């Protein structure tokens, strides 16, 4: 696990990003620099702006102001959402940014195999046989090759979410965005999804992970960012962040969420 040398141009960079919905400012000027292979956990209370941040990165939400750079090139989000030429460029950008959602969002009318091969075939223009070969390898790696012809409704939540991750990986993205991907899962299914994400981190995938799983944030991520009321209230290396949080807001958040963890554990036993 290396987090890229400091001299290297970061893979992804945000400067003073703002996002408002109507009068409500959700992101109040955040800046972030993500090195290649870096795993960043983004934590914070719900409504703090974590998900909005991820959704701005692949322009599912159009930022209100601020600049974003990906692989050294500026993401001109206003132009990308304006006309047809922009739309083509936007598609290219999104093709290299994988995103996984809280509610999996697999397409119910397509089989597992079709879910995974859809975008490579129709967006990247990969031949169908090639896409299927690739998908088989990916499904095999998560132990779901026997489910290739099933429809998503026949899979457990954990299996669906792992297929959703593999569907994003099939595009060979340069960065992966995870938006609370374990929040909708039954507790006993959380582990298999986190294991897959841990393995990706080990393989040096660049990852931005919005999560409530403090274990993952502490043990797998390199850096933790605490989002509080639309700003980065605190950020630092995972170990320091948990061992010695500096801000009162961080301490309060951690004590609340870790106590919940504890209660859950006692409940389970």
């Amino acid at each position, binding site marked *: 696990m290396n987090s890229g040398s400091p001299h290297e141009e970061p893979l992804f960079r945000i400067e003073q990003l703002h996002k408002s919905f109507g009068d409500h400012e959700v992101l109040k000027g955040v800046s972030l620099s993500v090195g290649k292979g870096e795993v960043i956990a983004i934590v914070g209370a719900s409504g703090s702006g974590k998900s909005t941040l991820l959704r701005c990165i692949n322009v599912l939400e159009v930022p209100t102001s601020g600049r974003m750079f990906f692989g050294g090139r500026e993401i001109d989000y206003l132009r990308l959402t304006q006309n047809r030429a922009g739309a*083509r460029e936007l598609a290219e950008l999104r*093709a290299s940014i994988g995103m996984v959602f809280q509610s999996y969002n697999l397409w119910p009318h397509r089989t597992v195999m079709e879910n995974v091969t859809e975008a490579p075939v129709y967006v990247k223009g990969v031949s169908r046989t090639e896409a299927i070969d690739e998908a088989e390898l990916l499904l095999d790696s998560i132990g779901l090759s026997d489910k290739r012809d099933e429809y998503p409704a026949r899979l457990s939540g954990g299996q669906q979410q792992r297929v959703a991750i593999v569907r994003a990986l099939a595009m060979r993205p340069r960065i992966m965005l995870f938006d609370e991907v374990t929040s909708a899962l039954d507790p006993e299914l959380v582990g298999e999804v986190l294991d897959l994400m841990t393995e990706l981190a080990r393989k040096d995938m660049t990852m931005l992970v919005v999560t409530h799983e403090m274990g993952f944030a502490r043990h797998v991520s390199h850096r933790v960012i605490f989002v509080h009321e639309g700003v980065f209230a605190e950020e630092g290396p995972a170990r320091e962040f948990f061992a010695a949080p500096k801000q009162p807001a961080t301490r309060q958040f951690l004590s609340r969420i870790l106590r919940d963890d504890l209660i859950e554990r006692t409940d389970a036993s």
Partner: protein
Amino acid sequence: MIGTALDYLQGFAAYMPGYASAFMIAVEVAAVTIVISWLCGLVGVLAKLSRYPALRYPAEFYIWFIRGTPQLVQVFLVYFGLPQVGLNLDPFVAGAIALGVGSGAYVAEIFRSGLLAIPKGQPESAHALGMGNALTFRRIVFPQMIRIVVPALTNEAINTLKNTSLLSTITIMELTLYTQAVIASTFRPFEFYIIVSVLYLAITTILTQFAKWYERRYALYL
């Protein structure tokens, strides 16, 4: 006794070839009408959900007009009204257009409810993978919408089929007009209206069964 019963039945048998052709006319005009209504519905819903007011307002006017006026009046408007502005249409064409455009407004609303039933995460995950709007609609949204609306669409097709009886008023020799003609010469309204009801029921029952089968088949996946 048996002889009179046979005579009685033979009396009906004489009208069967006529019924067969009237039945075919009703089915043909219904089929053409249904296809027109799907096209109008698709254009209508895309226009109504468009972000351009120049498309949205006409679509809203269309749906408002059709839903607020009787279908019989719409048929008369096309068949008797349009010739006044120089558009003389064959009764079959006029009937299919009037009923098709008329049903299309309802189909548009059915499509709209189908689109609204699709969770927004569905197109969103397609967009996140780099699929553009057109591709996402064609590959992800449209197929799911169809599955949701097939039962309602079948109901609308049944309505359309029954509404072909309105075309008896514009000289199309479909089931209802033929029945009226037969009754005029036999003075047997009870029997012949029962016969024509059975014929309508035969088609509508097939359609209802299809909708049930379809729902069972796809309930698994959605």
